[in-house]
């Protein structure tokens, strides 16, 4: 955890996307991927009514660690949703300074509507409380409370605990979706990638975190569709 003595050359410090506020970068992509039906069956989560696919917002954060409490921060928020025409939209916010956190939190809040249903993998216990803490520390209203939240970890555990070696997202995506990641930066190395960038290091690993986070979002969406289909 030593500070990087010398700054990496400017070419190595490139962050993809557009700088929508000082130090805050947005990557946005719209792809033809997946085939969601208009109404997603949520009986797997013991919800009574199905949910229109446009209401779903899949999200996943990258943070400075797992220690918890007020000292852990999110420095990247990825979100994915289905557009009305059935295409899949990926949006990722990356902060390159600490001060950009407030702009990131405000931007993410704007993506949430009162009828938004959050979709995550372990987000109820991890991402959501962490973001609530960050909103509180930034003195911003908390946009997450009161929203519906489908945390896929629990239904996955109900179905496959004891069947698979574990119920991590990487296992679920391999078993259910056949996803095999290449050159994936393990999630545990994401904090170091950001820290090193903050201290003037190269952005190469930060870009790999973006790719990793995008795949996580796709996998969350894919696992949701798989679980919804199980019920039919």
């Amino acid at each position, binding site marked *: *955890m*030593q*500070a990087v003595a010398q700054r990496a050359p400017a070419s190595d410090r490139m962050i993809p996307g557009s700088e929508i506020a000082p130090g805050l970068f947005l990557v946005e992509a719209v792809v033809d991927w997946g085939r969601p039906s208009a109404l997603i069956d949520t009986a797997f989560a013991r919800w009574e009514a199905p949910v229109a696919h446009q209401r779903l917002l899949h999200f996943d954060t990258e943070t*400075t*660690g*797992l*220690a*918890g*409490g*007020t*000292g*852990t*921060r999110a420095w990247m928020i990825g979100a994915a949703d289905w557009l009305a025409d059935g295409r899949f939209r990926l949006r990722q916010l990356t902060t390159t*300074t*600490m*001060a950009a956190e407030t702009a990131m939190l405000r931007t993410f809040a704007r993506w949430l509507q009162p009828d938004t249903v959050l979709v995550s993998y372990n987000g109820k216990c991890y991402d959501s*409380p962490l973001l*609530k*803490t960050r909103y*509180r*520390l930034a003195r911003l209203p908390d946009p997450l409370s009161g929203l519906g939240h489908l945390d896929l970890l629990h239904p996955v555990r109900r179905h496959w605990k004891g069947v698979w070696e574990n119920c991590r997202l990487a296992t679920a995506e391999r078993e259910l979706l056949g996803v095999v990641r290449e050159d994936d930066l393990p999630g545990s190395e994401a*904090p170091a990638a950001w*820290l090193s960038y*903050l*201290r003037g290091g190269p952005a190469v690993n930060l870009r790999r975190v973006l790719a990793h986070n995008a795949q996580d979002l796709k996998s969350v969406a894919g696992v949701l569709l798989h679980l919804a289909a199980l019920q039919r």
Partner: protein
Amino acid sequence: MNALPDRYPSDEPILREPGDGRTLAQRLSKRFAARITGAFVVPGREGSFAPLPEGLPPRLAQALRSRGMAQLYSHQAEAWAATQSGAHVAIVTPTASGKSLCYTLPVLTAAMTQHAKALYLFPTKALAQDQVAELLELNQAGDLGVKAFTFDGDTPGDARQAIRLHGDIVVSNPGMLHQAILPHHTKWAQFFENLRYVVIDEVHTYRGVFGSHVANVIRRLKRVCAFYGVTPQFILCSATIGNPREHAEALIEDLVTAITESGAPTGDKHVLLWNPPVVNPDLGLRASARSQTNRIARLAIKSGMKTLVFAQSRTMVEVLTKYLKDVFDNDPRKPARIRAYRGGYLPKERRAAEREMRAGSIDGVVSTSALELGVDIGSLDVVVLNGYPGSVAATWQRFGRAGRRQQAALGVLVASSDPLDQYLVRHPEFFQGAPPEHARIQPDQPLILLDHIRCAAFELPFIGDEMFGTEVATPWLDVLGEEGVLHREGDRWEWIADSYPAIAVSLRSVADGNFVVVDRTNGRQTIIAEVDYTAAPVTLYEGAIHMIQSVPYQVERLDWEGRKAYVTRTQVDYYTDAIDYTKLKVLDCFDTSHAGCGQAHHGEVHVVRRVPGYKKIRFYTHENIGFGPVNLPDQELHTTAVWWQLAQVVLDTAFEKRHQALDGFLGAAYALHIVATVAVMAEARDLQKSVGSGDGAWFVSADVTGRGQIRGADGQPAALAADAPFTPTVYLYDAFPGGIGQSEPLFNRREDLVAQSVSLIERCSCRAGCPGCVGPVLAADEDAATTPKALALRVLALLVAL
């Protein structure tokens, strides 16, 4: 087996008719005049009352009346007025004077009228539970609708959310505030936004290292409160100490209104200082304090008085409980009249003991210092101290347990053979006139401060030239930045590491987890007790008789790594007593300088505490009936120390005999220790003293005569060969792993310390030595040509800078 008769014919006059503390004091003084070296009376006083304040909500006033409180004591009314004026308040009145009502009234009023919240901090979980029980009773009596909860390590996870959201009064402890609440303050946002009062009870326990930590936790609390836009009012309570207002102000770093006049009525308190009789005039041996304590307690209980005995160790609690139970609880069909109370019992058992004591169904209680704090056990008539508790304040706190409103109470201090005890009973004026000790803290002690700035930075970023306590935090933030846990951006320092610093900072600096005691009698597997880490080596070694409510269990196996001791019920006529000693060895010398004819050093030392064996001691006769070996890992401590040495050639010139030099070093160590504790921390247990050889080959402890006795590396008394190297060394060391940074400032002030020690001894009005200077001395020494005082001065003179 029972060597003492159940009833002495000569005790009959004492037992003839029931009485109170005064009559018992008179009868004891008459019957045992030779043993009583001091007797005095602390006069009682009339109660001073005030009406219930106008501002109380009617339902609260009604609840108080329905519980028999139609008026307040004057100090409670004063506390009400002070809190309503917005001041921080410190209430310093004796035990059982109704202190808790001083904070209950403003807190409940604010909760009922403004939905304001309050945080209570108690040093122990037991006190927190007492307080919540009391609040709930009042709440129920008046249907006040106020919700009070304990929040501690035992609070289940699913209850925590509800407590954070709905608790009007959250009752916790400094450790929980430090490790669980402040680092998660955003979860407590609603609580903090409405926080109006912070109540800190038993603040006299927050001194020394622990108090310095707590003061920093309070700084962090205030910082978090400021984030939520609140500045809560502090209400602090303390038992009697010498500097209540100063101590309260040091803890919260703000001005405090102190209320020190109790309006609660008390009866007269009779105090007897009791020296056991000489049983062997040739050797000057006295009867044991234990036998005297037992006898006094027996007489008091037989006279129909509720009696509390304080013993210094858990083993002694069990021994004395057994003796009293043998007399009063020999019929198993009747409910027990005698109870033991000490740390190490399971919470359920302690609660039961407290309930029975309050209900008055118990006639005698034997306790360790666990009862010194405000655990509510109702009122008692007689308190017997088996040995001096070590400070004047603690003595009065313990005596404070006795005393009903109008009735005279009795406190008896029974001296042990310890030189300090013997000094006290020979000089009752020392005790009678001594002001209670001062509580001191040093929150800016660098390592403690750095720990808490680390925790504070985790809780909220530091911005600009933010102060932490009395200092600008910036230099410390630079250190943490270099360490890589903070990242600076513009004028903000933000936490960046993947760690939770509060977990690594222990307020009490006690290590390594409790031991559980597992009963395996007849194939059982029941946990019957817990023992803390430091007590385990001296109470749970294999072969130890471990007594619980005076039922003996033998330790069959000790699983040191697993922190478990397996015991079975047994029938024996003896108890066991561990032999333990401590020695020091220098590992690394950081710095050296001349100190007069000798040298002063500062560096790292290795402290070893070893329990080589134990003694078996027969009940009642106390004859030593055998030894057993103990095979336990040494308790080791790497820490820092400052030490002074004089070369052999210097000593040979200055002292005729080596034992005189050793006595001089012991006295010098005693004085240096007093001066040093005042200089850095003023909590004697945080800083320890030791006298030994420079190379760790031997160390010196005072033997029963108060003389220095050389002990070899194995702890056995040893004699030095005339030609053996002789470089006695006095050490002052941090009693905490790694040191707590006391030794460097001590080294920097080394010349001061020696000079102050010299003036301390010179100015002391005693002739030969006393607990105020070189340590207590025996009567024989008071006439010696070379008094301990003179010897200590001779050693110190050689160390004074030229």
